[in-house]
């Protein structure tokens, strides 16, 4: 259990550091790549919904510490998408396109969840077009990267003790 917690913490912390330090330099079609979202969805894909949700809450809370939005804003969307992706992937084949599709759908849900929460707390005013643009680009980028990230995250999550939450 302790080793698994350490592995999960490592994946989340690594994703947050990469997001904060390196990603500000990387934009695709005007949209920042969301490494934290990709990592959380990959964890949910590999380890199931409950561990995915823990990763979502932890990553969301740390991400919010760096943003002007209230703590918890990013967690809601990530939590819902991790629950959905983790639940569906439990009985699904490990085909790359299945991973890609699930992560793409999860990315759209996480983005819309974030926007809804931020807007309902009066912390965000943005155009419908911008939201759709960001959600679609993140879905495509995260979906395309999902099979590779899954391969990268899997050894980190499954080495040592077995996952059994």
């Amino acid at each position, binding site marked *: 259990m302790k080793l698994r917690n350490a592995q999960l913490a490592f994946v989340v912390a690594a994703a*947050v*550091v990469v*997001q*904060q*330090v*390196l*990603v*500000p*330099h990387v934009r695709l079609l005007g*949209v*920042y790549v*969301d490494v934290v979202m990709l990592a959380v969805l990959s964890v949910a894909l590999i380890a199931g*919904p*409950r561990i995915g*949700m*823990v990763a*979502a*809450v932890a990553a*969301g*809370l*740390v991400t*919010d*510490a*760096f*943003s*002007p*939005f*209230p*703590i*918890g*804003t990013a*967690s*809601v969307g990530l*939590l819902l998408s991790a*629950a959905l992706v*983790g*639940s569906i992937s*439990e009985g699904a084949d490990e085909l790359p396109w299945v991973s890609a599709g699930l992560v793409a759908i999860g990315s759209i849900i996480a*983005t819309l969840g*974030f*926007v809804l*929460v*931020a807007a309902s*707390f*009066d*912390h*965000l*005013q*943005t*155009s419908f077009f*911008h939201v759709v643009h*960001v959600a679609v680009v*993140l879905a495509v980028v995260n979906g395309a990267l999902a099979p590779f990230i899954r391969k990268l995250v899997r050894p980190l999550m499954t080495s040592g003790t077995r996952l059994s939450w």
Partner: protein
Amino acid sequence: MCGAVRSIAGTADLDQFTLNVTVRSSRTTRTRRALVAMMLLVATLLVVDHQPGDSPLAPARSAVRDGFASAGSGLGSLWPFGDGAEVKRLEAENAQLRTDLDAARGEVAKVADVERERSRLAELFDIKTPNDVPKTVARVIKVGASNFDDGIELDKGTDSGIRIGMPVETGAGLVGRVVQASRSRSTVQLVSDATFAVTVRYADSGDVGTASGQGAGKNLRGDLVALDSRVHAGELVVTSGTDGSLYPAGLVVGKVKTAESGGTDLRKRVDIYPGADLHRLDLVAVVQWQP
């Protein structure tokens, strides 16, 4: 015999199926419970952190930011791409700045005399202007690293006297206001942010109104300007500093680009371009002003 074996195998399959369904159902229930519990936790944190005034979660937020700040500054230098393009951009910017500097030197000579007179009058009437308020110079270390937040991060925080709500400017105009501050970092909401608004005065006509952001890369929108007002293109727009304002009077916000009377509108539509170049922010000054 054969039928009996088939019957036993069928019963075993059914038992296995029932077991699978039971395990899956138990897992689903646990997942739902976990989801509800975590949603409640997150909702509680959201409500607590959304409280007006100082959030009880602010110290935790500051600790995380400061912790990552020290680690992040070292890791940031590892990014291997973009340096070549950055050098070229800086060279071009340097050449442009030299040209601008020559032009500005001429203006400084004229302004010095006016400034002497202004200071004498301000002292005589005991008027405080932004020039009299102390400022902290800080470097912009991060620009809008999120898809829904185009704010900037500064390399100084509460240890340097920066507090939430303080205005931030460059010599050319208002950049925004501090919305978060930890010991070594602070976050600034830009004037272009769609949730930003400031009361302004139009320098020539004397009209007072509000200017609000319309999103990254867009001009500000001037509101509450009467139809018969003499607000015109090119007019300087400064903070009004009205009673209770979050900003001192006289900070340059920008210049009027267009001022039009729309069909059925009861007010003029004013388009203001920001004085500060929000796309090329490097060093900024945090005005140590608190209303």
